């Protein structure tokens, strides 16, 4: 397998995008997952459904709405313009925003499940030991729900790497800025450059396989610890 310079640029860009998106998602996905895991509010259903939408929507639908919403007349576009940031489509940060929406359920759901499995008790115990809310989060929730957080990070990263439809809709195929691996593969296929398409696709398949293998192996390893807490 040999990669062209453009392929390597696409791979590098993809890794940069996936890393950024994963970091952003861990920061904003955790409070959402926390809220979803613990609220008894009527809003739990609707909010959970919105988070899960990308699981069932074709990415092109999401991409199209994002294109319109982030455009000069869309609500997000209005905000970014008034902040002096211009509009987001065709930029790296536009892809980040799109990917954050798109990969959200893959990050929120594992964290939510882990927090739900944790239950109230460890937090109550920590509170009786004078641990305040942040203290409880960092010394109890984080270590006990670690498998959930790791799974979330890995899936969020991998899913962003594999993303195509949204990027296609809002990316504009700019080398080094928005031309990620999946788009590069698509271009190769459409241009009948099957050998290059094969090389990149093969790398992608191997990457995804390894990631899933690691996640499943890790979950099996951690499962006994998770169970221990439930008496």
């Amino acid at each position: 397998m040999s990669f062209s310079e453009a392929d390597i640029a696409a791979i590098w860009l993809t890794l940069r995008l996936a890393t950024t998106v994963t970091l952003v998602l861990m920061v904003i996905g955790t409070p959402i997952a926390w809220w979803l895991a613990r609220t008894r509010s009527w809003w739990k259903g609707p909010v959970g459904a919105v988070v899960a939408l990308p699981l069932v929507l074709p990415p092109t639908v999401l991409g199209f709405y994002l294109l319109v919403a982030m455009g000069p007349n869309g609500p997000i576009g209005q905000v970014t313009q008034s902040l002096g940031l211009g509009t987001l489509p065709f930029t790296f940060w536009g892809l980040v925003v799109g990917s954050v929406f798109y990969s959200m359920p893959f990050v929120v759901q594992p964290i939510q499940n882990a927090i739900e499995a944790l239950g109230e008790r460890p937090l109550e115990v920590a509170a009786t030991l004078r641990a305040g809310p942040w203290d409880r989060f960092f010394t109890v929730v984080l270590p006990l729900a670690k498998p959930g957080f790791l799974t979330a990070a890995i899936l969020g990263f991998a899913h962003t790497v594999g993303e195509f439809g949204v990027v296609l809709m809002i990316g504009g195929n700019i080398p080094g800025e928005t031309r990620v691996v999946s788009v590069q593969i698509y271009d190769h296929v459409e241009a009948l450059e099957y050998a290059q398409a094969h090389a990149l696709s093969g790398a992608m398949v191997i990457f995804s396989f390894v990631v899933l293998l690691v996640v499943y192996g890790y979950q099996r390893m951690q499962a006994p610890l998770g169970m221990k807490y439930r008496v």
Partner: protein
Amino acid sequence: MAVASNFTAPMKEIAAAFERSSGHRVTLSFGSSGKFFAQIKHGAPFQVFFSADRAKPEALEKAGLVVPESRFTYAVGALALWSVRPGYVDDDSARLKKGDFRKLALANPKLAPYGMAAVEVLQNLKLKEATQAKWVYGENISQTYQFVGSGNAELGFVAVSQIMDKGRIAKGFAWIVPGELHDPIRQDAVLLKRGAHSDAARALLHFVRGEKAAQILQSYGYKTLADVN
């Protein structure tokens, strides 16, 4: 029948007219030419292929998958520089020369003939280097249309057929690019080996070359090869 998706609307009308006049039934499948090409190579059961370019039918011909001599140009596309901003584009290239825009959308020249033609236009206008940093590629001509239509790109090169309705520009403002500025955007069709013995397929290909089809093509902003030559 596999039809390039940018030819969806006129083909529906042509097929309807054909069914009325011949009594044959036509099943249309719309999609990207590249995908159809890959599918046909791997045995997809299409009898006729209307591509959005010349390269793919030619490659299929070389691969021996088409009835010899059946390849012909069914339509010639026209290019327009289009914007949805009122007064942003007059019927000329002034805005391109001025260069005070942020993004210029065009179809990926590697994949789409309209994109290739757009690059030729910019080359002939000596604007390629000046504008290149502002290009954004649609993967195909309909995505390019979305980029401009949603306002994310101030202007872009689209197919006249996309913005033309009954001989008028339906939405936005456009400069219909003169045909001399680029090679003709020829869309070729072929009769595939699987359709070699189908009377209906041959009849349809004949109908597409006829007077009635030419009228329909024109109303959608396409030309025929005869117009160009």
